[in-house]
């Protein structure tokens, strides 16, 4: 029996979240003494399979390279995974929108529970996961023969390279033809990915407009080589697109340094960033809840303080 990791990728390269997922699989693999396999399903994605093959701890890469996986639809991917599920005790993916969309479908087809967004592994069948926006941690034990899991990527340090796994081609599954991609509008940015950035500069309603958001935060983010994030309020107000959102229902991040600017600190926002190593808050309201989690708080007018901070770095 082995552990199967579902790779998230863009057909050219692995997404960083896959490395954290392999790390969680490695913990399980060490406890069980079993191999880790990575499934790469895509179109013209041999480079991804090669990248997965050199990850530390990976014993085998299964590659399903076919046009029907170009769009990465949950329906076709789930059918492929279920057809290849034999021999695996655990099927694991990242708790990204990719993994959250896919793994519950896989679990239901296998008639097993799915365990969402685990942040700790107690034993091969017992996992720790956040509930209530991270205000509580539940330890749950699975009675199913196959554990289908998504992994909170910030809770597991990415694996490095050093493996030399064999790449095995596997047959493509059926094209169910249920879903068709119309288009994607992906945010193009030279900045680091939010989920993998060491520093994040994040803005909230206090910035008052999208124009201010970019004018004030981008120079600071440039200085720090930081990713840009936002509170739900800033996204709802249309300052920035949805993919900037950090929080319970947005992205969960844990950078070395998180700078919250004009963010009051609603519970659902804190749920997405309170595991950051160092938190800085800049807010004009000295009683804002964000100061209860911030290591360093600066009370004042962000329109004056942020340019000052940018200049001082």
């Amino acid at each position, binding site marked *: 029996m082995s552990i199967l990791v579902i790779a998230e990728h863009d057909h050219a390269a692995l997404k960083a979240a896959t490395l954290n997922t392999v790390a969680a699989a490695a913990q399980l693999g060490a406890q069980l003494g079993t191999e880790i396999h990575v499934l790469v399903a895509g179109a013209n994605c041999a480079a991804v399979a090669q990248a997965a093959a050199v990850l530390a701890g990976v014993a085998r890469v299964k590659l399903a390279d076919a046009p029907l996986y170009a769009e990465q639809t949950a329906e076709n991917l789930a059918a492929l995974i279920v057809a290849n599920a034999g021999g695996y005790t655990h099927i694991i993916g990242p708790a990204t929108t990719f993994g959250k*969309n*896919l*793994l519950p479908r896989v679990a239901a*087809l296998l008639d097993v529970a799915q365990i969402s967004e685990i942040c700790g592994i107690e034993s091969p069948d017992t996992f720790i996961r956040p*509930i209530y926006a991270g*205000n509580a941690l539940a330890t749950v034990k699975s009675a199913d023969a196959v554990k289908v899991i998504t992994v909170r990527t910030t809770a597991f340090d990415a694996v490095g390279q050093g493996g030399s796994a064999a790449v095995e081609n596997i047959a493509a599954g059926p094209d169910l033809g249920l879903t068709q991609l*119309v288009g994607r509008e992906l945010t193009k940015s030279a900045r680091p990915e939010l989920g993998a950035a060491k520093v994040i500069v994040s803005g909230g309603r206090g910035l008052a407009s999208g124009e201010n958001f970019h004018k004030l935060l981008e120079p600071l983010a440039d200085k720090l080589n930081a990713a840009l994030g936002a509170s739900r309020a800033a996204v709802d107000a249309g300052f920035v697109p949805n*993919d900037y959102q950090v929080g319970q229902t947005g992205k969960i991040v844990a950078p070395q340094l998180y700078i919250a600017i004009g963010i009051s600190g609603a519970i659902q926002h804190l749920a997405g960033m309170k595991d950051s190593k160092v938190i800085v808050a800049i807010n004009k309201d000295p009683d804002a809840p964000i100061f209860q989690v911030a290591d*360093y708080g600066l009370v004042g007018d962000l329109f004056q303080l942020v340019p000052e901070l940018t200049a001082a770095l």
Partner: protein
Amino acid sequence: MKVLVAVKRVVDYNVKVRVKADQSGIELANVKMAMNPFDEIAVEEAVRLKEAGIATEVIAVSCGVTACQEQLRTALALGADRAILVETDAAQAAELQSLAVAKLLKAVCDKEQPGLVVLGKQAIDDDANQTGQMLAALLGWPQATFASQVVIADGKATVTREIDGGLETLAIRLPAVVTTDLRLNEPRYATLPNIMKAKKKPMDVLKPAELGVDIAPRLTTLRVVEPAKRQAGVKVADVAELVAKLKNEAKVI
């Protein structure tokens, strides 16, 4: 086309939850309950489809204790036409997990034959984000999760989804399952006349056994604890002090 919408009774989002002293779960005694906010968005979307002449009937479904009727009445007041409660006892409801709910909803779909099922993308209590995907799998239907826009035309749904990198638009065959994200719509408030009217709308109560569904939990919760609290730090006087602290004390820049 019938539209089925799923509704979960959860702790109100304004409540600061507390963990029980015996670590068996969350304190629910005397806590305000409400409809899961993502499900309100789902109800709103279904009602708008009816107002647009696309849906012929909106059916709200909930699974759990008798008190879930409150949330179903809310859905009826918001514009759903009728409601179905799949009723369990309190002990079963406490461990009614996503797979079991998906199976119950599938059984309801088999009876009602909706053209579209709309669910919230996740419930704010267990944050599982599974039920819609599982229901789609069990029905063999396409799924469009985390929707920020839904357009129904020519027997298909064109759904814009909020994904990590931005937005993705899918065309999916009907019948299908859609789960709602925050920005799909802004739910209306129930008016008093509509709340009164909702009391007269039909509500069926079924048992899991009548639907032939085994709702036994697959996961056992061993304990629930509070996470380690983050200590509040210090307030700094000015930018110069902040930069000095980040460089010399925290060593992160």
